[in-house]
């Protein structure tokens, strides 16, 4: 407390990890890997009614190189799986993955030869949002949970 007192009221003290986490959680640049029905709800979340921009994740980037949040929006088939892996690998660290809807999470009610039973069998996932498709509110809730997770992480820099 000694340093804080000597700095007076114009400065605050915090841990570096917490400060970086705070910056990172409010400047998420998403890459929407949108494939299926869920992308309709992704559009709803992104547009004015639900407006994901209020939570600091407003700008979708259409290149994985510029994104740090991979949103996997919809069913991933075995034909598409290698593409998803490649996109994930192209993203720079630190990066997070949000599994948008049950198809991405577990395959949903598509249990068959064509569908990957959950993207976590091919890439790591940070947060799962349930629903088929999830309501926009559920996605925002998922995003806030992810932000809490980012804030609490040990930051690499």
């Amino acid at each position: 407390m000694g340093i804080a007192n000597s700095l007076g009221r114009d400065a605050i003290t915090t841990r570096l990890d917490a400060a970086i986490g705070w910056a990172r959680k409010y400047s998420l640049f998403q890459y929407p890997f949108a494939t299926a029905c869920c992308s309709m709800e992704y559009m709803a979340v992104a547009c004015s009614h639900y407006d994901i921009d209020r939570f600091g994740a407003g700008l979708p980037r259409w290149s994985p190189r510029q994104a740090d949040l991979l949103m996997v929006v919809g069913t991933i088939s075995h034909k598409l799986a290698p593409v998803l892996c490649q996109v994930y690998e192209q993203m720079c660290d630190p990066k997070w993955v949000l599994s948008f809807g049950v198809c991405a999470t577990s395959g949903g009610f598509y249990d068959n030869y064509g569908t990957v039973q959950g993207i976590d069998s091919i890439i790591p996932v940070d947060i799962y949002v349930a629903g088929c498709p999830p309501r926009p509110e559920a996605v925002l809730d998922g995003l806030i949970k992810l932000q809490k997770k980012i804030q609490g992480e040990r930051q690499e820099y």
Partner: protein
Amino acid sequence: MSLLQELSQEFGQAVLSTHARLGEETVVLQRKRLLDLIRYLKNKRGFDFLMDLTVVDRLEEVPRFQVVYHLYARETNRRLRIKVQVAAKDAHLPTLTGEYRIADWLEREAWDMYGVVFDGHPDLRRILMYEGFEGYPLRKDYPKERRQPRVGPGSTEKTAFDKTPSIADVLVLDDPDTSQAAVSSGTGIKEEIMYLNLGPSHPAMHGVVRISVALKGETVIASDVEIGYMHRCFEKEAETHSYTGVIPYTDRLNYVSPLINNVGYAMAVEKLFEVETPERCQYVRVIMSEISRITDHLTCVGAFAMELGAFTIFLYLMKSREYLYDLIEDVTGARLTTSYTRIGGLKGDLSPDFKEKCREAFRKVREDIQECDNLLSRNRIFFDRMRGVGVITPEDAISCGFTGPCLRAAGVAYDVRKAEPYLVYDRFDFEVPLGTDGDCYDRYQVRMMEMEQSMRIVEQALRNLPGGPICLDDKRMTLPPKELVYTTIEALMNHFKLIMDGHGIRPPAGEAYMPVEGGNGELGFYVVSDGTGIPARVRVRAPCFALVAGLSHLIRGRMLADVVPIFGSINMIAGELDR
């Protein structure tokens, strides 16, 4: 003389049998005369559309496969089904690619899914599945859960990513000489053929289509469209679920207008039962279908305007769509995946204050559409990028199997709601907007005008909405009311019979093809019943499939930058494209 009699006479012994059931005419034919019959029907009897081509696998029977062709004649407004039976060991048929352009992709799919070979097909390769995939997944003896992953657990070297053929191997250039390393143009600058890959992970490809193009300068000289990235095996799933269990899967075919899919599927099964739903149910189905059509067109126009840089339009139209989603949610309980219809009726009635809410929502939607029209229709940038781009002639559009707004933009007045009015569409006064040039701008205009017509239909339907039940009173398909199930043994047994495995809804053995006007065109459900509680085959004639199959034709000779508006204007919906 009826068409069936005429064909029997004309083709004699080759016609094995003919029948007309449920108002559908069928010819069962020997393989060797197939091409003759198709040519006869096309050239002499005006069957200009090959609506669908599919296979039915009858594992226990000999011959095993039935290849089913659905033809449609626009002038005389008739349909004909042709069936050819082939054995598993000798599953060969002549190709129809010379007669109908759409046959190219339909035959590739039949080969991919069933292993039926079409002799003379120029490019018979996998379409929905990938290189390295073994077996034919829709065959009855292919287990539903047998996966062949390309990455992750269980993947083998055979299905590895790098086995995907390179663009240069796939593309066929008209003039083989141009594929040589360099071409010298008049200026002395060497022009090379450049291969470019768009997608599947590309914002304008909506995540699931890959277009490979060969460019000379900026001009597309050849292209290949790869689909199947969203193949979720709808048709295989349908063969393992009860008739009611299939309904949620139909939502997710064209997820931009799910209610139309619900209605189409339910009507196909009702056709097998030869029943008609109560009048109120039919009105409500019309209302919900038309609201769905508006959401479809709003999404389509919004998305392709955004891809051309008009982001404001996207925001406005998505806002509008929310008003309609609120309406849909009010009635069905879900915004998007509605599962609203039941065989023989509906899940529930309209909400009590639906009329007022609908009036208010339409007022706001009309405002937004007007705003969009003001901003877009005479916008120099938008107009110049749309007008004269992606032109298709009526003849080509028909040969490519185009239906819906894309066909009508080319000036062909075919709308299932007018041609073969189903439900109560014949009671409403509405127009079918037509284009003249068949370009992107016309496709945009047709969609804008159709939204107004859909709102007119809904308003008329709400004005004349009759009372009465919304479900058919039929023990074979309608669940008894819960109050009765809990108090009487008859209703309890009835409930049990409809719900339990091995019982359920059992349409009489037979087959039915039910076309409805989907957001993108003719959406047909071909349902085959063997009398059990599980469908023997559910086939979807997805309008999108034909549109995307014609994409290569549309972009050839255009500039690279035109690919985006052309692709946007055909409104590809992956769910129904790949099923």
